[in-house]
């Protein structure tokens, strides 16, 4: 591995570290804090909203500054999502995600750093998320092969 690649990986570790500290300080690693934000008619806690405000205050202007360059530091070009359609998978998928989040109190971004706390709950959650991703891939490739099969 050349020096460029090693620097790139260290930079990624550092980036993950910043994210992890941010998640921990924000309280998003605590399902109780997260779920209380959604408990509009009960023990409401605005913390989640504050976290998003804090994040957006940084990313919204920051992205604009970064995109003045032609390319990122360690890749050939920026790899941004190109899909702009508001379609059924987006809406249905988001609805399912919300239900799962509301049941478990974890979302993937919060659970990944939480793996370092030694608690079993984030581990179980992440494994279940992986299972869910796998399930969706299996169903997707199965339905694709059905379409391709000659009549």
């Amino acid at each position: 591995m050349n020096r460029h690649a090693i620097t790139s990986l260290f930079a990624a570790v550092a980036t993950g570290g910043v994210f992890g500290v941010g998640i921990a300080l924000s309280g998003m690693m605590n399902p109780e804090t997260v779920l209380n934000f959604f408990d509009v008619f009960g023990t409401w806690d605005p913390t989640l909203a504050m976290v998003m405000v804090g994040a957006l205050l940084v990313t919204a202007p920051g992205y604009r500054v970064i995109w003045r360059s032609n390319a990122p530091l360690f890749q050939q070009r920026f790899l941004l999502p190109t899909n702009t359609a508001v379609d059924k998978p987006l809406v249905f998928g988001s609805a399912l995600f919300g239900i799962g989040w509301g049941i478990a109190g974890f979302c993937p971004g919060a659970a990944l750093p939480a793996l370092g706390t030694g608690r079993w709950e984030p581990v179980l959650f992440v494994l279940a998320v992986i299972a869910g991703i796998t399930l969706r891939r299996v169903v997707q490739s199965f339905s694709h092969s059905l379409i391709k099969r000659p009549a």
Partner: protein
Amino acid sequence: MQNQRDLEPNVNTFLELGLHTALIGGALIGLSALLLMLLHGRILGATGILSGLVFVNDREDWSWRAALVLGMVLATVALGLIGGASLPMTVDASPLMIIAGGLLVGVGTSLGSGCTSGHGICGLARMSLRSLIAVLVFMTSAAVTVFVIRHVLGVGQ
């Protein structure tokens, strides 16, 4: 009368979470998204990162994802060591609920192409209509779910 704070171990006050730490934490999350964009040109979407980690595309692609997640985990390990006590985590969900929730999150985020970090932070920062819709839908969906669980079924309270 002794102040409640005097009775708590000192280490816990370092990680005393509140709205101020929420704002700072959020800003750090935002900063990490900027760093990933600046360095690797990508959206910081946790589900996509996890997915690419498990379902490997190529070695280089896997490496930066693994490094990122390693950093995330090292951060909480370090905070745990510095803070002494573990970071607060109150989980009312039973193991079955965690599994069910996780499965739904896994299916939902792959269908909907993103989660809170991908759509909620990065997508909104890009002013993506797709992400705005996604955020509105999953926030509403989560709120309805919590209402049903806590106030209709009376679970976990």
